[in-house]
């Protein structure tokens, strides 16, 4: 069922702009043209009973409960499927209508159990409402649900249950799975009273194609499909709008709470990013927030080999401050630094970088975007002038051609994937550039027109070959590029890509992509007329990550595919607030709004506001911090919400660096891997425990609202404030809104942002300022932010990480739908039902060569380390390439990845590691050896969880 505070209007809003005036029960009503009579009645404050209609789905017209009378029309049309017309006279109530409606509802009730009092949907069921409204208390035809009796309940999904006896076969669930999610996992089979809902081929939900997005559960008008948690905890009493804390789609959600306990999470139908949809993570996997592993008390220890000692907040904060002061006194101001978190709010990341720059007096601040989309920031800033994606998600609905590069949205950005699928099913053309056969290459009703299955590490070869075709076949939009871009760089670039070395034929040997396919894809992209590029970490996490981002911007500029809806360059950013963390000045070389620290005017603006002298030189980036730690010049680090030891490449190197520091402070929800090397642990707060904002991948700033008190007493922003105070730099904010006011004062792209405006508009896409008071859905309209767009020459340079006779396979990494990033949160939820370990995907030919069968344990070795995991023999892979995820620390994927990184930003090359894979007879022995190697780097006194776990 939809959210408890949602007023359902029966049918979706039409797309029209004009209006229509009609008469409803004697009142004059004006509504948008194309509105259904049912919706018009609801908009006018009236109500028509309904069963098969809900405003998230197209009208279906099957239940016949919503009948009305319309003057001049025969019979009793269904109000959900009838559009308003000018001058139409509608009657929603009459004895005849009531009689007909009552008869229909009586029929439904006849095959439905009558024990509403004990039903979980009691008070929130549309059949119950309709029956009550029409005075139906029983049925002349009653059989008490006999025809569904004996059909077993399906409780296989960990989050929801299917009760066939409560099903009224309205097919809302089937349509939700089709229209909202796009998975088509459900059908109605059988006829009449024996018809029933079936997942895939009569499978339990858990084993079916269902991806547990919950759209069907929300659409169901009865308790036939219902969440399990409210059954256990009781019905929610209040709904609080907030923003998902998982991925960069940034879905707007309603946290439905009973007292302070979240019992249900329902997507907000007014949410602009998600339009009332969510995925299994955002909708269901929030249990980690109250998991017993949450650390609720600060802890300190002198050495990382000592046991933790629980202390008060005061002691933890003053110890940290005194250590930072001591270290700075001894080793200099630049011997310390801080890391902001892409999982925390904008306000929190802003405060951490402020603390580092103003209170510690250094620019040694960085963020986890370093290891994901730093190349996006650099590449788009240099070419287009702004370090962010150019479009709103809804723009995809106007795209004719979608080129998807190094991204797997059905797993990584599921709600955007659903929207993309809708557009593809309307006929848009899809080009996929990816070493793997991702789901979107072939899925129900969708087939990519071209899949360029390139070798890992050869993106730039492919983008240059595509550009070669565009230019040499005369497909470029010269008029656009000459007018909107720097003409000299454009012409230089044209000459560069036209060179025969960049032709698809020449590049085929490098990329492995047939030249003819590249030519076909280039022609499709250039033909558009609206062509949009969406890309992910498969673009950025390479030694040429930045070059590839520039290559993407080049081809979009050359074909005129920027500056309007339906086109653009859109990075699908990973974590919930990675865009925001970057915007807020988390990088060591720039203040909020991407302004370089060497810029005197900007610096003096901040110096004036912060009453501090600020450094003008760039600080250390994360990998540089590790290097500096190993040479002894970097000694203390304040890490908010980031697990280096799990997420960063070459784990042994990271561990050695952290072990060399004198004060590592970890602020997190759980005792993460990095906490093993920490001297201070400060308990963090989840997104449910604080106010603030997140900024999603489309630059949309959305409110995060507190629904429960921080488990450890303080929200993350309050902890940073206390630390600043202890360092002798008091900060005075009583609410995150005041931090946002400061951000707005100091950041031109945020000048117009206030909490009041966010409340009013729901969300805002930056830039939001005097020129664009309500925000900017599409960037670079009319002109590029940098003035003229700039083309860069993007020579393909092979990565130094190559397959050799010793390491003949290339390993690439990614993620799955059910787990999130390092898995700290999702591993502590029932999402484990779908994936409880990382696995290695390997092509059947490579598997056969090595005697590996599906499910076998395999050892994976690179020049930096080993790991052991189970194999999945899969034709998704191309021969020579293997793939794994990095959600589980025990697999130690980053023991194997290398320190190779992007030339411009040091974004690690996670996507290419040369490895060998062997079948392992005794995985335990491998695991023991790897553990021993890792253990040698670790502290002997390793607490694995909070010592108060039992009482939590």
């Amino acid at each position: 069922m939809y959210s408890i505070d949602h007023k359902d209007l029966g049918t979706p809003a039409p797309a029209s702009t004009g209006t229509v005036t009609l008469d409803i029960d004697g009142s004059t009503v004006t509504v948008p043209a194309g509105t259904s009579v049912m919706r018009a009645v609801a908009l006018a404050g009236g109500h028509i009973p309904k069963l098969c209609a809900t405003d998230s789905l197209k009208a279906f017209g099957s239940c016949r409960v919503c009948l009305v009378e319309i003057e001049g029309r025969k019979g009793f049309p269904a109000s959900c499927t009838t559009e308003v017309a000018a001058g139409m006279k509608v009657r929603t109530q009459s004895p005849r209508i009531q009689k007909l409606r009552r008869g229909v509802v009586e029929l439904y009730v006849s095959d439905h159990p009558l024990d509403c009092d004990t039903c979980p949907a009691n008070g929130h069921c549309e059949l119950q409402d309709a029956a009550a409204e029409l005075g139906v208390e029983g049925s002349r035809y009653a059989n008490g649900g006999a025809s569904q009796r004996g059909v077993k309940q399906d409780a296989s999904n960990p989050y929801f249950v299917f009760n066939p006896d409560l099903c009224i076969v309205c097919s809302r669930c089937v349509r939700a799975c089709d229209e909202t999610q796009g998975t088509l996992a459900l059908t109605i089979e059988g006829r009449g009273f024996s018809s029933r809902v079936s997942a895939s081929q009569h499978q339990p939900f858990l084993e079916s194609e269902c991806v547990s997005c919950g759209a069907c559960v929300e659409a169901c008008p009865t308790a036939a499909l219902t969440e399990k948690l409210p059954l256990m905890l009781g019905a929610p009493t209040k709904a609080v709008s907030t923003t998902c804390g998982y991925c960069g789609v940034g879905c707007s959600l309603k946290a439905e709470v009973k007292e302070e306990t979240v019992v249900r999470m329902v997507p907000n139908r007014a949410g602009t990013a998600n339009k009332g949809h969510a995925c299994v993570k955002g909708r269901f996997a929030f249990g980690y927030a109250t998991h017993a592993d949450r650390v609720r008390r600060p802890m300190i220890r002198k050495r990382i080999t000592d046991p933790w000692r629980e202390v008060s907040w005061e002691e933890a904060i003053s110890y940290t401050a005194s250590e930072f002061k001591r270290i700075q006194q001894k080793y200099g101001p630049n011997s310390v630094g801080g890391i902001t978190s892409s999982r925390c709010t904008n306000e929190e990341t802003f405060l951490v970088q402020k603390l580092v720059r103003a209170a510690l007096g250094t620019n040694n601040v960085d963020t986890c975007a370093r290891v994901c989309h730093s190349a996006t920031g650099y590449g788009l800033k240099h070419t287009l002038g702004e370090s962010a994606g150019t479009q709103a998600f809804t723009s995809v609905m106007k795209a004719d051609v979608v080129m998807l590069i190094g991204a797997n949205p059905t797993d990584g950005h599921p709600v955007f994937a659903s929207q993309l699928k809708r557009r593809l099913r309307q006929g848009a053309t899809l080009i996929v550039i990816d070493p793997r056969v991702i789901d979107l290459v072939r899925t129900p009703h969708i087939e990519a027109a071209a899949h360029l299955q390139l070798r890992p590490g050869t993106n730039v070869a492919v983008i240059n070959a595509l550009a070669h075709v565009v230019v040499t076949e005369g497909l470029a939009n010269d008029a656009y590029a000459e007018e909107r871009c720097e003409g000299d760089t454009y012409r230089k670039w044209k000459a560069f890509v036209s060179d025969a070395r960049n032709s698809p034929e020449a590049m085929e040997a490098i990329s492995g992509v047939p030249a003819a396919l590249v030519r076909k894809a280039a022609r499709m992209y250039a033909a558009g007329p609206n062509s949009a590029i969406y890309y992910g970490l498969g673009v950025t996490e390479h030694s040429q990550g930045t070059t590839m981002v520039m290559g993407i911007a080049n081809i979009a500029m050359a074909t005129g595919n920027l500056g309007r809806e339906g086109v653009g360059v859109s990075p699908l950013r990973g974590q919930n607030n990675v865009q925001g963390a970057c915007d807020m000045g988390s990088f060591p070389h720039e203040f909020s709004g991407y302004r370089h620290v060497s810029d005197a005017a900007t610096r003096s603006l901040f110096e004036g506001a912060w009453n501090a002298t600020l450094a003008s030189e760039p600080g250390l980036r994360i990998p540089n911090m590790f290097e500096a730690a190993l040479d002894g010049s970097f000694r203390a680090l304040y890490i908010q919400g980031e697990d280096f030891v799990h997420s960063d490449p070459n784990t042994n190197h990271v561990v050695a660096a952290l072990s060399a520091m004198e004060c590592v402070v970890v602020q997190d929800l759980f005792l993460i891997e990095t906490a093993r090397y920490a001297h201070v642990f400060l308990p963090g707060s989840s997104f449910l425990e604080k106010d603030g904002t997140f900024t999603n991948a489309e630059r949309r700033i959305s409110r995060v609202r507190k629904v429960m008190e921080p488990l450890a007493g303080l929200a993350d922003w309050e902890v940073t404030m206390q630390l600043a105070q202890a360092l002798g730099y008091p900060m005075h904010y009583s609410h995150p809104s005041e931090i946002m006011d400061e951000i707005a004062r100091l950041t031109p792209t945020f000048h117009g942002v206030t909490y009041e405006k966010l409340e009013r508009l729901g969300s805002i896409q930056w830039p939001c300022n005097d020129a664009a008071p309500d925000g900017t859905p599409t960037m670079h309209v009319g002109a590029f932010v940098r003035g003229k767009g700039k083309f860069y020459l993007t020579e393909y340079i092979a990565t130094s990480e190559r397959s050799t006779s010793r390491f003949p396979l290339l390993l690439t990494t990614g993620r799955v739908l059910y787990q999130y990033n390092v898995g700290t949160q999702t591993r502590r939820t029932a999402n484990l039902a779908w994936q409880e370990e990382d696995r290695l995907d390997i092509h059947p030919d490579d598997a056969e060569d090595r005697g590996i069968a599906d499910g076998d344990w395999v050892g994976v070795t690179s020049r930096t380390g080993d790991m052991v995991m189970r194999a999945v023999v899969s034709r998704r892979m191309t021969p020579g390439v293997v793939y794994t995820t990095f959600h589980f620390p025990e697999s130690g994927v980053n023991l194997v990845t290398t320190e190779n990184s992007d030339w411009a930003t040091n974004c690690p090359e996670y996507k290419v590691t040369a490895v060998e894979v062997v079948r392992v007879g005794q995985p335990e022995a491998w695991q023991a050896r790897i553990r021993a190697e890792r253990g040698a780097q670790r502290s002997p006194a390793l607490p694995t969880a909070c010592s108060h776990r039992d009482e939590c």
Partner: protein
Amino acid sequence: MNVERLVAMVNDIAAFFASEPDADAAAEQVAYHLQKFWEPRMRSEIQRCLEQGGVGLSPLARRGVERL
């Protein structure tokens, strides 16, 4: 700082700017990048490396570092 790592990094930067046909402009771009994105101790380390012969630096990387 691990000098070998810094040398590899500056070589990668130089490799990107090597497409610039004007050699002086390319060296300038390498130097500019180092100025804008490298922390001072990294820059002084690579300068020290250059003073000691600049072993491993590509020709363009060397010219870039010379301009720091």
